[in-house]
């Protein structure tokens, strides 16, 4: 289990629900005009007893315990829609909701089984699926290009590629891994991975309210990262990107961080001449919540897709800031059973219906959670012959030709 006893992320921020109005970012919550745009834009707003507007109202009225005792915060998939739309610019998803979710999580009479298993697995094995940590780099054997593992060859490296769990272990994530390795190789990038030493970055544990687990993972990852010299960290995980940019620096991490999509988009001129194979795909792109609404990367994946010969890009009605969450954030990845039992629609189903209606044959994504979530929805809804799901990097690798 290797639990450690250092504390940082929460104490560094120093904000708790009790003193939230004393911090500048928390004090802003006092200026909420209760307009309700947050509740209206929340994909699960209609099935929460306390959507964001009411949470703020209850907090101001000193009645937050009622909110924490409900399961509203378990229904929050931290999609950043409320925060992105708030006319007062209040810090809902990155300040208020994590604090509230942490307190709600501690008060849960019973953690839903699927989520409990994922969290326990993440603590023990460093990945939510409970796979052997020793197999974290198993995908590399079939990558077709050499992949350096730092524990075996610790020389300094330009790009430390933090692969992340769903990419490293899920069979479809592994396709993304192999594609990423091929594109990195084609660009002549000096890259290496941590392999079995890498642990889940922990963003979803934190956003599910399991802050202690997040801190343990942060400690473990920083200790390993501290052993090696590298210029930048590039990750395949959209949620890992978010954690490395916004949370890990509080614990002392100070390297530049990029997501594979933005990293490749930044090297588009070098990449373009390599994209020689014409792909006759009509593609619609799903904006990941964390890459899009939280970090503002809307155009980078679209630039990559448009650079691929033969690819026609069409948009869903809900795109960019209005994108509909796949339902996988904030622990939602492991709450499908709970949501189903509560009669809640699976958000990935809602999204896939819209994607199919564009007439596209490929649904392009940039977050490793989305591949399995959308593929499941396509099968459940009977659209799996009409549309396939591909990570943007997978499509890039396909266009590399031979």
């Amino acid at each position, binding site marked *: *289990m290797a639990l450690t006893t250092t504390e940082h992320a929460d104490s560094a921020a120093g904000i708790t629900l009790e003193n939230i109005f004393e911090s500048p970012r928390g004090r802003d919550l006092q200026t909420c005009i209760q307009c309700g745009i947050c509740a209206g834009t929340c994909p699960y707003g209609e099935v929460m007893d306390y959507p964001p507007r009411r949470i703020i109202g209850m907090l101001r009225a000193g009645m937050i315990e009622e909110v924490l005792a409900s399961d509203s915060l378990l229904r929050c998939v931290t999609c950043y829609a409320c925060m992105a739309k708030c006319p007062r610019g209040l810090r809902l998803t990155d300040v208020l909701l994590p604090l509230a979710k942490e307190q709600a999580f501690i008060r849960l009479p019973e953690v839903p089984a699927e989520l409990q298993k994922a969290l326990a697995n993440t603590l023990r094995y460093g990945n939510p699926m409970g796979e052997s940590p020793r197999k974290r780099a198993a995908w590399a054997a079939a990558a077709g290009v050499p992949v350096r593992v730092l524990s075996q060859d610790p020389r300094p490296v330009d790009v430390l590629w933090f692969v992340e769990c769903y990419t490293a272990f899920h069979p479809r994530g592994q396709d993304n891994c192999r594609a990423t390795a091929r594109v990195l190789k084609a660009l002549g990038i000096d890259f290496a991975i941590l392999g079995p030493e890498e642990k889940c970055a922990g963003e979803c544990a934190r956003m599910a309210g399991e802050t*202690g687990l997040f*801190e343990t993972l942060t400690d473990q990852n920083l200790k390993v990262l501290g052993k090696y010299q590298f210029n930048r960290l590039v990750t395949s995980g959209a949620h890992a990107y978010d954690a490395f940019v916004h949370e890990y620096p509080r614990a002392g991490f100070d390297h530049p961080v990029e997501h594979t999509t933005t990293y490749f988009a930044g090297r588009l001129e070098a990449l373009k001449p390599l994209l020689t194979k014409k792909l006759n795909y009509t593609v619609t792109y799903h904006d990941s919540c964390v890459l899009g609404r939280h970090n503002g990367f809307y155009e980078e994946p679209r630039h990559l897709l448009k650079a691929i010969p033969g690819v026609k890009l069409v948009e869903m009605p809900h795109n960019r800031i209005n994108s509909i969450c796949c339902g996988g954030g904030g622990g939602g990845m492991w709450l499908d059973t709970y949501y189903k039992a509560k009669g809640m629609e699976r958000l990935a189903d809602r999204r896939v219906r819209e994607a199919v209606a564009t007439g596209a044959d490929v649904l392009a994504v940039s977050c490793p959670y989305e591949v399995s979530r959308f593929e499941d929805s396509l099968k459940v809804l009977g659209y799996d012959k009409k549309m396939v799901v591909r990570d943007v990097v997978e499509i890039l690798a396909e266009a590399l030709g031979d």
Partner: protein
Amino acid sequence: MVPDIVEELEVGPDGKSLDLEFQRPIVSERDEHALEQALLLKERCGGSVTTMALESADVDDVLFTALAKGSDRAVKVAGVETPPTTAEAAALLAPVLRGLLDQKQVDLIVTGCSAIDDLDGLLGPFLAERLGLPYLGIVTGVVVGADSGRATVLKEYAGGVHAEYGIALPAVLGVQAAEKPPRYVPVAKVRAVMKSGKIETVSAAAPDQASLLQVVRMTKPEAAGHAEMIEGSPEEIASKVTDILSARGLL
């Protein structure tokens, strides 16, 4: 603690034990249920829970987690040099439990009814024998009523049959499944307990007799026959299936 089957099990170089090089032992699932059943009883009837474990790698984390879940005391039996057999484990635990029983501090001793390295589930019976207490295994529920000297124990049999036993306390129970799945405890709580909580350590008594059983050889199961994959169009497959079934007199 038992081998974690997330890692592939390999036979060690001596040919009669597991290769533990890449093994991180994990708490046995049934023992987690035993602890949960004890915590549920404490919540319903009061009293206190003491979690006891033999020293092994990572066992401190398991004991701190038990404290964070609601166990009142954690006791580690230290000085255990090699992984003990089930009989040896009972011999190590019994003297410590004897001391607690003599002080009338124990009403119930619960353990997992089996483990992946003790499928016979002999730890409970061995302990009961050494302590001179009654034993019931494959337990799925415990009710303690007004008479605190007795408990009603739910025991599971094959084919969906359940039985209720009245049992005089103190007793030893082998728990198959607690009445509720084992609870989750937030890591922050475990970390807090690691700072404020305490694991009591007692020294293991010298073994009173050598194990009467010896492992002679350990091997992986040998593959016997293989499944036959029937290939072809759906019609061809259906026709081959009917041929096979008729050949065996099933059609």
